């Protein structure tokens, strides 16, 4: 598979160019945030990301169902951003197929052909050429529909009603309905989502085969990383409306740009590490040799794939630990090894028994190091009886009304929602987010909500980035400050009430 991809040459002709594309919905949500990329002619491109990452919105803008707030979409160099969908040489396979229930299989597939108009040249009596625009002839439509049905292996299904077809067959009709129009680009919006696993795997290969045969550009949307790795020439990984990485499946898997990509594509162990020397990184209390060059003392994310860790007998490897779980997965065993407080997932064909003391080895080129992306502090917390929030080994004043839009607190401390429901928030689990600029510290231990020691102080050009670590659970508060402190100072952490962002983990039962 890999070899085939390596040798396959793609033309450099860019069929789609996306320039600074942004889509902001009426409610202010930014679904797609200033993305730019291009798609080459004949390429199989996959947008991959969790739900709500903006991949479907991007696809809908290419199809023409959604209009960009700003930015441009170019098709063969022509701006099509505001062209209606029926004017674009692009066809879509919809997520739930959207086959017309009032039409049979033949009429569904012929839908586009019956509307199509082509230029036909005639020769009149005097031998002059006359150009006429007319509809396709009936026999032409029939021939095309039959060809498309053959392509998707559904010969003889013409007269069947679409409601009598199975999910897989409906899927095939949807594909036939799109490709019969010979589009320049075929868009596929999670087309295999509704199929069972076995069928999905078969269809993946068939789609890949079809892509090769037809030679048209495929743009595919999925949240299934395996699907993306199997089928694509290029994968575009998206998160929160922003492109995280663009690359071949091999690149994305082996050289993830950040911890999100590493985590989303395949299983991975992600550690917080520190660069301790030239091509040396420290994590799980050991200095490992690595191949990436970063500045000394830089905080980094270290990604190691479970299959890249080798288990050896105790004392023979780099780090010792203990097996705490082992599950047979068919081809391999998935084991969890405990090193200090860190759990490490390992895949190996040789089983190690639970409780066995072992040692691990990691090769330098299996250690992938990426810059730590740190934009805010995130904690798991809960609301107390007094409507304060506990997180990071401390208790802080907060505004609980942000949990429900337009809600208020009554005198007894219950939350009244917009709909008038009365909610007791005590012990509700919340996700807490605090920005890097929203934390202050003080020498006075009683002033703040949590107490800890300054464990790190890095000068970042015009300010310091400090890390205060608490004693009990070693929770870190990372923040920027212009004041100078000393490492190991004991301080209390102060966060203004309005700067604590809360999100409910799950809906409360009322």
């Amino acid at each position, binding site marked *: 598979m890999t070899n085939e991809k390596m040798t396959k040459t793609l033309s450099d002709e860019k069929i789609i160019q996306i320039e600074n594309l942004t889509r902001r919905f009426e409610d202010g949500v930014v679904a797609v945030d200033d993305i730019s990329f291009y798609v080459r002619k004949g390429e199989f491109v996959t947008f991959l990301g969790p739900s709500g990452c903006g991949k479907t919105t991007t696809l809908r803008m290419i*199809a*023409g*169902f959604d209009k960009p707030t700003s930015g441009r979409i170019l098709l063969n160099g022509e701006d099509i951003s505001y062209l*209606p*969908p*029926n004017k674009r040489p*692009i*066809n*879509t396979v*919809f*997520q*739930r197929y*959207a*086959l*017309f*229930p*009032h039409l049979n299989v033949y009429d569904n597939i012929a*839908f*586009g052909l019956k*509307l*199509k108009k082509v230029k036909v040249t005639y020769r009149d009596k005097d031998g002059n050429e006359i150009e006429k625009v007319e509809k396709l002839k009936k026999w032409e439509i029939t021939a095309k529909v039959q060809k498309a049905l053959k392509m998707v292996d559904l010969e003889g299904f013409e007269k069947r009603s679409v*409601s009598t077809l199975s999910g897989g067959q409906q899927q095939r009709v949807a594909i036939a*309905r*799109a490709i019969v*129009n010979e589009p320049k680009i075929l868009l596929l919006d999670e087309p295999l989502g509704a199929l069972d696993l076995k069928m999905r795997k078969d269809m993946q290969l068939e789609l890949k085969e079809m892509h090769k045969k037809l030679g048209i550009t495929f743009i595919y949307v999925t949240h299934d990383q395996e699907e993306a790795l199997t089928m694509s020439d290029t994968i575009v990984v998206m998160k929160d409306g922003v492109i995280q990485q663009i690359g071949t499946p091999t690149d994305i898997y082996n050289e993830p740009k950040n911890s999100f990509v590493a985590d989303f594509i395949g299983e991975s162990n992600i550690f917080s590490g520190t660069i301790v020397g030239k091509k040396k990184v420290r994590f799980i209390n050991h200095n490992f040799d690595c191949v990436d060059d970063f500045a000394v003392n830089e905080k980094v994310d270290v990604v190691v794939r479970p299959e890249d860790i080798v288990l050896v007998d105790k004392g023979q490897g780099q780090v010792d630990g203990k097996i705490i779980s082992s599950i047979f997965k068919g081809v391999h065993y998935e084991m969890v090894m405990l090193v200090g407080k860190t759990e490490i997932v390992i895949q190996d064909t040789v089983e190690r028994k639970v409780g066995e003391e072992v040692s691990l080895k990691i090769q330098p080129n299996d250690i992938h190091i990426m810059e730590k992306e740190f934009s805010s502090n995130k904690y798991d917390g809960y609301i107390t009886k007094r409507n304060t929030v506990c997180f990071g080994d401390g208790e802080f004043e907060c505004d609980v009304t942000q949990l429900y839009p337009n809600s208020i607190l009554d005198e007894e401390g219950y939350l009244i929602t917009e709909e008038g429901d009365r909610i007791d928030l005590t012990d509700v689990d919340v996700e807490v987010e605090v920005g890097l600029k929203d934390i202050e510290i003080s020498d006075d231990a009683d002033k703040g909500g949590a107490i800890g020691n300054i464990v790190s102080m890095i000068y970042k050009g015009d300010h310091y980035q400090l890390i205060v670590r608490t004693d009990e659970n070693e929770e870190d508060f990372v923040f920027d400050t212009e004041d100078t402190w000393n490492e190991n100072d004991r301080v209390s952490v102060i966060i203004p009430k309005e700067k604590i962002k809360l999100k409910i983990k799950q809906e409360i039962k009322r």
Partner: protein
Amino acid sequence: MTEKDFIQEKAMRNNKFRLSFSRKQLCLPYGVFLALFVVLPLLLIVFYSFTDKDGGFSFNNFIRFFSSATTLTTVIISVLIALATTIICILLAYPVAYILARSNLNRGGTLLLLFIMPMWINFVLRAMAMKDLLTIIGVFGFNNYVNVIIGMVYDYLPFMVLPLYTVLSKMDKSYVEASKDLGANAFHTFTKATLPLSMSGIASGVTMVFMPTMTCYVISDTFGNGLITIIGKLIDEQFTTFQNWNLGSAMAMVLLVIMLVSMWVTGAFKSEDTRGNNL
């Protein structure tokens, strides 16, 4: 049987009685109602229509009905008025339902409420008020048939809006997108996708407008200045003015057949998987 056995059996019987009080039994009151006030009267109509004044079996009522030019004209007029009303209702209600279902105008259903609210006001009162209003603005009076149709449309429009609104608002938007994606412009998308997909709503609406308008003689009396007779009025006259229950019943039977036929025709559209989407 010992005393112990007796008590046990009694307890079991009590228990059994309580358990067997099932959902089926809850239908009993309605069943009685149905038998007394729907099935029995229907049987009576059938009986009266096939008998003469002395109670002997005869086809005379039907022969009289079909041989009288007056009654046949009335039937044709009734059907034509109902047909015109239904078509006008579809033409008026479809755009309204479409806009209500598709745009943001109808947030919270307020606008829809405005359209169906007239249904909550007594329709005799409504008809009288409408007549007065039309007279004031001067539209009323130039043709009795037009007057009756105006009155019928006014009265039955909500019954067409509601099922159409239900079908259109439930329709998956991806059908419209698929149609545009396949090259259809706005007009073709409507004629080839939206309209055929909303046929079940139209069928429901037709059932709820066409049939009642054939018999609703309150409106034909009010708006037709007493000069327009529809089949409902004819039946009423047989029962009240002429005291000929047998002929009246026969007319009701003919009407029933017309309705069954029209239901069968509209039902053909509903037989697809969209059944149940309507009211």
